[in-house]
C-alpha cells in the first residue's frame, strides 16, 4: 500500500515533468509572444526596439533553451512573474486556487450527494414514474447549457427576487463569512446542477446492474430490510464504477468551471488560465495548467485508493 502510493507519486512527478515541457512548447508555439501584446498599444515602436525587448526577455533564444531556464528556476521555487498582473505567479495562483476550491469542492460534494440519492431512487424501479421524473431532470441537467442556466439564475434570483448577489465573491467593505457564503450560493448551485445529471445517470445504471445480482437476493433471503439491502449490499458494490467517473470529472471540473466562473465573475483557476492564455501571459498560464494537471493526477490516485477500499478483489501493489 505505502509502496503503491510512493510509486504513484514518482509516476505523477514524471508525468508532471513531461507535461511541463509539452505545455511550455505549445505555449511557445502559439502565434505571437508577450512583446507583441506589449507593443500592440503603441504602433510607433521601432522594430529594433522590439527586437531589443525580445533579447532582454530571452525570447530570441531557442525554445529548448528557454524551457531549460524556466525549469531550473521553477525547480528552485521561482515560477516567474505574471506579465499581465505584474505580480509573482504564486501571488496570483494561490487566491485563485482557494476560490476554485471553495466553489468546486462544495458543488462537487453537493452533486455527489444529490446524484447518490436520485440515482438510487431511480434504480429502485427502473421504468417507473419516479425513474421517469428523475431521468427527465437528469437529461435536462445534462442538456441545458451552463451559461443559460447561469443567466436564468441571475435573472430570477438576483434581478427579480434579490435573494442573492448576481456576481463577485464578496461585497466591497463587507467580506464577512456570511457575505462570502451568500456570494457562493448561485455559482455553486449552477455548477452542481450541471454535473448532477450525468452523475445521476451513472449511479442509476450501476445500481440497476447490481440490484439484479444474486447477492441482492441472498441479502433478501437473509431477511435484510430494504434499507440494508439497498444501502449495504447494493450501493457499496455499485460505487466501484461510479467512483472512477467522479474522480475523473473532478480533474476536468478543476479547470473546466470556466463558464460558471465567468458568468458569476469568480476569480478562479479556470478564468485565470483562460485570461492568461489570451493575454500571452506565459508564466501564469504554464503554472496554472501544470497545477490543473497535478489535480487530475491526484484525483486519479484518490480513485485508485478508493478502489482498494471499496473492492477487496483489487489489491494495491
Amino acid at each position, binding site marked *: 500500500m505505502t509502496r503503491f502510493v510512493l510509486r504513484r507519486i514518482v509516476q505523477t512527478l514524471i508525468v508532471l515533468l513531461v507535461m511541463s515541457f509539452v505545455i511550455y512548447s505549445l505555449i511557445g508555439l502559439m502565434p505571437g509572444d508577450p512583446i507583441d501584446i506589449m507593443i500592440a498599444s503603441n504602433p510607433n515602436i521601432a522594430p529594433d526596439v522590439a527586437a531589443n525587448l525580445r533579447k532582454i526577455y530571452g525570447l530570441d533564444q531557442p525554445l529548448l533553451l528557454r524551457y531549460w531556464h524556466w525549469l531550473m528556476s521553477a525547480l528552485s521555487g521561482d515560477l516567474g512573474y505574471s506579465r499581465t498582473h505584474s505580480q509573482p505567479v504564486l501571488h496570483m495562483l494561490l487566491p485563485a486556487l482557494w476560490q476554485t476550491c471553495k466553489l468546486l469542492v462544495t458543488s462537487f460534494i453537493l452533486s455527489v450527494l444529490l446524484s447518490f440519492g436520485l440515482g438510487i431512487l431511480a434504480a429502485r424501479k427502473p421504468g417507473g414514474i419516479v425513474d421517469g421524473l428523475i431521468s427527465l431532470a437528469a437529461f435536462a441537467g445534462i442538456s441545458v447549457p451552463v451559461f443559460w442556466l447561469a443567466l436564468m439564475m441571475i435573472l430570477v434570483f438576483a434581478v427579480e427576487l434579490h435573494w442573492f448577489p448576481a456576481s463577485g465573491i464578496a461585497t466591497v467593505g463587507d467580506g464577512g463569512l456570511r457575505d462570502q457564503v451568500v456570494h457562493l450560493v448561485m455559482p455553486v448551485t449552477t455548477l452542481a446542477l450541471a454535473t448532477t445529471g450525468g452523475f445521476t445517470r451513472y449511479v442509476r445504471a450501476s445500481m440497476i446492474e447490481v440490484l439484479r445480482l*444474486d*447477492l441482492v437476493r*441472498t441479502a*433478501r*433471503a437473509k*431477511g435484510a430490510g430494504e434499507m440494508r439491502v439497498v444501502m449495504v449490499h447494493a450501493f457499496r458494490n455499485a460505487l466501484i464504477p461510479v467512483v472512477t467517473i467522479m474522480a475523473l470529472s473532478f480533474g476536468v471540473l478543476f479547470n473546466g468551471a470556466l463558464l460558471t466562473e465567468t458568468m458569476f465573475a469568480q476569480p478562479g483557476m479556470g478564468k485565470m488560465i483562460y485570461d492568461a492564455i489570451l493575454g500571452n501571459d506565459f508564466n501564469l498560464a504554464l503554472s496554472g495548467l501544470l497545477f490543473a494537471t497535478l489535480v487530475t493526477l491526484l484525483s486519479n490516485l484518490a480513485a485508485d485508493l478508493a478502489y482498494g477500499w471499496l*473492492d*477487496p*478483489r483489487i489489491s494495491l501493489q
Partner: protein
Amino acid sequence: MSELIALDGISVHFPIGRGGLFAAPKRTLRAAENVSFAIAEGETLALVGESGSGKSTLGNVVAGLQIPTAGSLRFRGRPLDAAAWKDARRAIQIVFQDPFGALDPRMPVSAIIAEPLKIQGIATVAERRERAAELVGQVGLPRDALNRYPHEFSGGQRQRIAIARALAPSPQLIVADEPLSALDVSIQSQILNLMKEIQEEHSLSYLFISHDLAVVNHLVDRVAVLYLGRLVEIAARAEVFDTPSHPYTQALLHSVPRIGRKRPRGQTIKGEMPSPMAPPPGCVFHPRCPKAADVCRSEIPALLPAPGRPGQLAACHFRE
C-alpha cells in the same frame, strides 16, 4: 412425518409490458399455475423440469422472495402471512445456483455467514463469530476462511460458504435452487455429499430444484415434475423413476442418455415448450404428447392417483 410447509394453489403471473399507446401490448407470463404440494419434516422434495418450467419461481415463492399472485402457503400448519413470515424467514433459507454472484464481494466470509443472525438480532458479536467459525468447519472449510473474501475461493468452496450462510439461523427448510449446476462434476458430488451429511445432522428438509435426474435419484425422497408452470406428476422417487405415470415424465426419463442402451424411438419429446405467455388450452402438454386425444385439447386434467398406486399423483387423462 408431519407437514413442514405446504403450497396451496400457488400461481405466479408476471405482467409483461405496460400497455399504452406506444408500448407493446400488455401480456401475462404464467410462471406457475395452481401448484400445490407439501414438504414433510426431514424430507427432500425435488422439483424437476425443463428450463422455463417455473422451478426457480416456485423456489423463490417458498423462500419468501416472490409473492404469489394467487394461492397460499402454510408453515407448520400456520398460514404464512406477513407476520408469520417474520418467524418463518429464519426457518426457510435458500442456496442459489451461481456461487459467484450470490456472495457480496465486499464482505469477508465471517460477515456473510453472521449477517442473517445480525439482522435477526440473535446473539452477541462474539457469539455470532463463534457460530460462523463452527459453520465454516461444518461445511469443510479451514477456519482461516473466515477472514477472507469470496473472490479468494473456488466455485465449490463458495457454494460451501453459501450453504454455511444458509445454515446460520438454524433453518428447518433449505431451498436449493440448482446448487450444483454451476460446479464441476467432481465438485458436484462433494457438495451433494455435504448436503446429505448436513441434512442428517440437522434433520433438515430440502426443496431441491434441479434438472439433473441422476442427482435427483441420488438425493431425494419425492419428486415433483413441473411442465410450463403446472405440476404434472408428484410421487415417491422410486415410483417416478420405475413407473412414471405422466407421458411427460416418461419422456423426461427416456431423454437421459445411458451407456449401452439405444434410445427407444418415438419416445422423445418433439418440439419446444410453448410460450408461458400463451399456454395451450386443455392439458398444456398436448401439443407434444404422443397420447394426445380430443379430450386433452379441451379439458384440463386434474392431479389424480395413478391406477393402483394411491401415492403417485399425475395430471393426465391417460395416466398409467
